[in-house]
């Protein structure tokens, strides 16, 4: 099927087309879903190489499940987030360590037109945020990333994490409080201290 006609097609339909042998559907699903999956995995693992491995594995599972996909039961993106969450949890447990975060592990910025200084400040800020996220307990980090960065609703997060909506709300609120507490001591990295001093 021509790519132009597939641009507006939902992920679920594309997956059915893929299962029916449409090669263009595979390309479109890859370009749509890989950035989201990789971004989420990177924020959970704080390691780009590991996140890429998890992304490839999650997409591999998607291709495998495509012929048996039951339409209307779950969104493709929700299913993928769930797979990535489980893969990241397994990976961290298997390696038995807490992630270390460096500037190199921060997601690559794609904002066009920003000045070099602004880009550096933004990169520092994102690195500080990722570092703070990595310091949170695993479930809190997952909930905060899914809710406030990936922009999912509480019921969707509940489906991904096998939790009720109230538990998700509680987890997210606690995660945000912990995040604020961690970041409060890193205002310089966030670029706020200088602004505060300039304002005085």
């Amino acid at each position, binding site marked *: 099927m021509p790519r132009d006609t597939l641009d507006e097609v939902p992920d679920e339909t594309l997956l059915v087309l893929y299962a029916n*042998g*449409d090669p263009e559907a595979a*390309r479109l699903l890859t370009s749509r879903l890989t950035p989201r999956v990789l971004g989420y995995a990177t924020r959970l693992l704080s390691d780009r190489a590991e996140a890429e491995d998890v992304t490839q594995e999650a*997409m591999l599972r998607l291709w495998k499940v*495509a012929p048996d996909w039951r339409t209307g039961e779950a969104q493709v993106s929700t299913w993928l987030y769930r797979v990535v969450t489980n893969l990241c949890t397994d990976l961290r447990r298997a390696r038995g360590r807490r992630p270390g975060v460096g500037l190199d592990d921060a997601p690559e910025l794609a*904002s066009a037109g920003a000045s070099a200084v602004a880009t550096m400040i933004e990169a520092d800020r994102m690195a500080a945020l990722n570092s703070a996220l990595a310091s949170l307990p695993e479930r809190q980090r997952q909930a905060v990333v899914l809710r*406030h960065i*990936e922009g999912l609703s509480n019921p969707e997060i509940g489906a991904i994490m096998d939790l009720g909506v109230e538990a998700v709300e509680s987890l997210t609120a606690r995660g945000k409080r912990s*995040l604020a507490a961690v970041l409060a001591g890193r205002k310089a990295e966030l670029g706020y201290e200088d602004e505060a001093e300039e304002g005085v």
Partner: protein
Amino acid sequence: MDKDFDLDALLAEAAEVRVTPSAELSSLILRDAVRLQPKPQPWPQPFVQKEEPQVSAGGFFGWFTAFADVLGGGRAVAGLSLAALTGLYLGVAQPNLMQSLTFSLAADSTVSDQIDLLPATGTLWTEN
């Protein structure tokens, strides 16, 4: 919330950051997709009934073929013809075998009972 920074704004800023997968990762994922993609299934072909080959015959044979088809085909016509000829033969030639057979069967049969449905009434007219 901390007075010096807005956590929601920071998280919103992070949400705007788009992570770009490397070309190598994308090609690996696509390679997996192609490897695991089910082969397209051909659409089922509609059932087409084979037509009987038409025997083209002209003239008398064409007419006879059409006539035989009306009667049920060549075998039916052959059967009808045989029956007709047999009947004609029995009717015209009257073979001795048939006569003797009929006579022998009729001669052996005897009337065992006879019912007189119309009794004689002549005696009623006779004066004694």
